[in-house]
């Protein structure tokens, strides 16, 4: 995985203040690790800007995330605005290796292959029956003997799987 971690360049105090913020639905990974927190920079008018990017277009957590960032900045006495930027589109490829491991330990199988995988045309069909090589390992027991229950799950970013060895159901964070 070529996780592109966002390297804090300057504004160190603000980066570390925002580092405590986690995803509202997945409280073990930080916004930076997920790739949602993109940048801290000076706007053209000189005002500080914290740049975030939405995950799924309709993700209901984005409002909460924006509020969390704003509240943290206010608590630090930092005057800054929150800018939501769509491009480049968020991808699970940006998730750091640390974040993937934390997801797994939390019981969510991390995305297996990113959108950077050898890309078929956009209209090529993703098959329902996963090939053995593409099996999603169980986050509980590590077995690759798993099966998809449903394409969609409890949040927009997840699918439902089940382990056929330990029999536990689990969430799979879908590649995006």
């Amino acid at each position, binding site marked *: 995985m070529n996780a592109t971690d966002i390297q804090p360049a300057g504004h160190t105090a603000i980066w570390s203040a925002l580092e405590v913020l986690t995803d509202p639905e997945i409280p073990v990974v930080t916004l930076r690790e997920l790739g949602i927190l993109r940048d801290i920079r000076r706007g053209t008018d000189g005002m500080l800007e914290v740049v975030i990017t939405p995950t*799924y*277009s309709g*993700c209901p957590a984005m409002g909460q995330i924006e509020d969390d960032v704003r509240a943290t900045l206010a608590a630090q006495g930092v005057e800054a605005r929150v800018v939501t930027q769509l491009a480049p589109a968020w991808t699970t490829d940006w998730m750091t290796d640390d974040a993937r491991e934390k997801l797994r330990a939390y019981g969510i199988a991390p995305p297996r292959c990113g959108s950077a995988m050898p890309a078929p045309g*956009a*209209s090529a069909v993703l098959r329902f029956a996963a090939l053995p090589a593409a099996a999603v390992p169980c986050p509980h027991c590590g077995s690759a003997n798993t099966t998809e229950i449903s394409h969609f799950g409890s949040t927009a970013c997840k699918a439902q799987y089940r382990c056929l060895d330990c029999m536990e159901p689990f969430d799979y964070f879908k590649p995006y």
Partner: protein
Amino acid sequence: MNAVEPRMAASVQAPVDYLLHLADNALILGQRNAEWCGHGPIIEEDLSMANNSLDLIGQARLLYQHVATLQGNGATEDTLAYFRDVPDFRNYTLLELPHSPALAGTARGDRDYATTIVRNFLYSALMVLVWERLQGSTDPQLAAIAAKSLKEVRYHLRHSRDWLVRFGDGTDESHARAQAALDHLMPYTTEFWADSAAETAAQAQGAGVHPGALRADWDALVDAALQEATLVRPAPAKGYVTEGKQGIHSEHLGFVLAEMQSLARAHPGATW
């Protein structure tokens, strides 16, 4: 990853009518699919339709926000979604139809999941092609929305195509229902390829794509799935071509809007 190549040409904003067409498609189908929330045939499909609607309504919001910025004059995503009437909507007629087979007694009583799946398949197959092209739109905001939407609609296509094959190549009952839904809905897809002023203008600017250019790719995608599903593509329709994207709708859209807009209209400006 689907990197969006910045265009060398100066950015051109897409025509508002074209953006509204894309936004209304997403909103109306999102509203329709959300009708399954709490009524899905199985809980996994209940969740699937709720997730699908969340994506579609999210896409609609991004597009309406873009339109509101271009229009100014107090327009917001809410005024565009809740305070326009039937003739203002630019969605395909296909997307406003109830989830019932043709000639159903009452739309609500005869909600049919095969109809839902076939419609989502026909629309998602088009939108993967549309969003793919729009990533290169001269309108940078539209290109950015397209890059996100493409990732989402690929999952919608996967889901609906998978169920299409399961229904078609399933039991006699599921096959018959899927074929009936296909026979009912396919004629409405003729509208995809009809000319509209908004699409022609958007195409000319490089901001949009005329779906006529995507027809062969769409046919190939649909035909391959139908073959796998052992379903028969109905003969091309020769009758009336629906005109929802021109603002001329079926009797069903008014009911969709009444349900969707009543709360916002009863309490204008309310927040929670």
